[in-house]
């Protein structure tokens, strides 16, 4: 629980720091003209060298210094802002390495953030390493889709096919998205704290879907200016699933409910698994073509795996390809942790709404499961509803862990995987609805 304290104190420190910030001006500026070298005395040379050190940039920040995108940075963002970001980044390193929170994503994102906050180097610019990566696959939403393809190739829909009705739990949990959409709108309309447009609210609310790739995809379409903060919030909260979910799960269920044992699942045939991705894709193209890129990439990966005839390719998607893309996606998203982009009031708003979204999704899933348990012949442990937020497979593991606390030996993992993978589809559908609305 120390982590929770740490996390919230960072949030508060963050809030304090942000309130001392001025808005960053920011009009894209012309490429700096490189001057020809002129002869220098040793003293001039040394002093001109000192002017290119990061130390100088920290100690004496100047008005008019520009970031990688050619926008002016405030002196605060150049000095204290960067130091605060370094603190946040070292916290992320600590969480990733010592606490094992989503290291595959958190570590590259945090390292990308470290690089993005190096003064003078301009690594987020179009010619910088992070900028090249960003333009290569994040600005055009290609990397998130490749990740989704790999996740599809890793996903086994067996548990869902064995117990189809648990898909509804993956639907209920999407209240995390739409509930927080209303919350974001209210926060924006009724307080002067932040001023989000409807598109921005929608993009933010997708954090509640607990799918990083989906969040980045939607942000890029509806509110590219917020993509950085949204991606960071999405991945951070997914990492915090084991901290956020259990209290809510326990608050909404009785010990007796948590102790419910579920029946073993039926055997699923290979042909069912093979047809399932096509079924989902056909439904998507009929009902919600706007979700086709996400669902299409996901079902391609899954179909390739279940076909059993292209193991070469599906192994590639699950291993080398997703690894490469994860490295790049992490560094690219990390580029949005530059102090002047990240230390703004909107980020704080996004962090708050994101937390709300996860909580709302978890709660809705659990409550739906309670309801279904009332009307179902077979017993349903309400805990598995919490897995509906997706965050595959961590949410399902949390469910299993909380379930085992109530009744040692009660393995809910397989039962939780059903809503868990249905949550991925549910979030993609919700994302498609957003895209369709703003078409």
């Amino acid at each position, binding site marked *: 629980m120390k982590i929770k304290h740490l996390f919230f104190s960072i949030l508060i420190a963050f809030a304090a720091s942000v309130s001392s910030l001025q808005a960053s001006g920011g009009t894209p500026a012309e490429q700096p003209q490189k001057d020809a070298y002129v002869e220098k005395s040793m003293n001039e040379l040394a002093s001109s060298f000192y002017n290119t050190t990061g130390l100088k940039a920290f100690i004496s920040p100047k008005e008019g210094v520009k970031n990688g995108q050619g926008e002016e940075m405030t002196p605060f963002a150049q000095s204290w802002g960067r130091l605060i970001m370094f603190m946040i980044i070292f916290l992320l390193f600590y969480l990733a390495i010592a606490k094992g929170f989503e290291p595959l994503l958190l570590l590259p994102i945090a390292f990308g953030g470290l690089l993005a906050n190096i003064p003078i180097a301009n690594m987020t610019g179009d010619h910088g390493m992070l900028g090249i990566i960003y333009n290569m696959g994040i600005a055009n939403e290609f990397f998130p889709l490749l990740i989704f393809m790999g996740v599809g190739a890793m996903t*086994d829909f067996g548990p869902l096919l064995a117990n189809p009705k648990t*898909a*509804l739990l993956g*639907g209920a949990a999407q209240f995390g998205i739409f509930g927080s959409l209303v919350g974001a709108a209210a926060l924006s309309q009724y307080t002067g704290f932040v001023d989000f447009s409807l598109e921005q609210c929608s993009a933010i609310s997708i954090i509640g879907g607990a799918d990083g790739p989906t969040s980045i995809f939607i942000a890029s379409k509806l509110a590219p200016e917020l993509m950085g903060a949204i991606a960071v919030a999405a991945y951070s909260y997914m990492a915090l699933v084991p901290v956020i979910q259990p209290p809510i799960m326990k608050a909404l269920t009785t010990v007796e409910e948590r102790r419910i044992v579920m029946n073993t699942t039926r055997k699923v*045939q*290979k042909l*069912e698994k093979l047809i399932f991705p096509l*079924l989902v894709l056909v439904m998507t193209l009929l009902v919600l073509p706007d979700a086709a890129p996400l669902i299409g990439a996901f079902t391609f990966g899954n179909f390739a795996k279940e076909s059993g005839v292209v193991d070469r390719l599906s192994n590639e998607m699950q291993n080398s390809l997703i690894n490469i893309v994860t490295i790049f996606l992490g560094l690219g998203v990390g580029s949005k942790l530059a102090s002047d982009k990240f230390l703004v009031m909107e980020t704080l708003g996004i962090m708050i709404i994101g937390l709300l979204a996860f909580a709302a999704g978890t709660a809705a899933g659990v409550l739906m499961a309670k309801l279904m348990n009332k009307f179902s012949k077979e017993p349903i442990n309400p805990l598995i509803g919490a897995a509906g937020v997706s965050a595959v497979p961590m949410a399902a593991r949390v469910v299993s862990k909380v379930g085992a606390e109530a009744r040692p030996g009660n393995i809910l993992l397989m039962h939780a*995987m059903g809503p868990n993978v249905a949550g991925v589809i549910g979030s993609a559908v919700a994302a498609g609805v957003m895209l369709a609305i703003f078409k």
Partner: protein
Amino acid sequence: MDIVGESIKFMVLGMLVVFTFLYVLVVLMGVQAKIINKFFPEKKQPAAPVSGVTPDISEDESRRIAAIIAAISEFRKN
């Protein structure tokens, strides 16, 4: 614009679409299972490895491959 009002409408539409989508999917999964079990039953399938998602396993793989190789290279050192 009353964005709260609009967002509530979005919520209604969105939750409706999500639930409808998943409900139809539930129904179709059931229909599919029945058709397949009736017309294309599998013969003596080996115990189905019903596991959710395999990322961790593949991560372990690399470590294990490394371990295997380390072990074998002990014997194959030139």
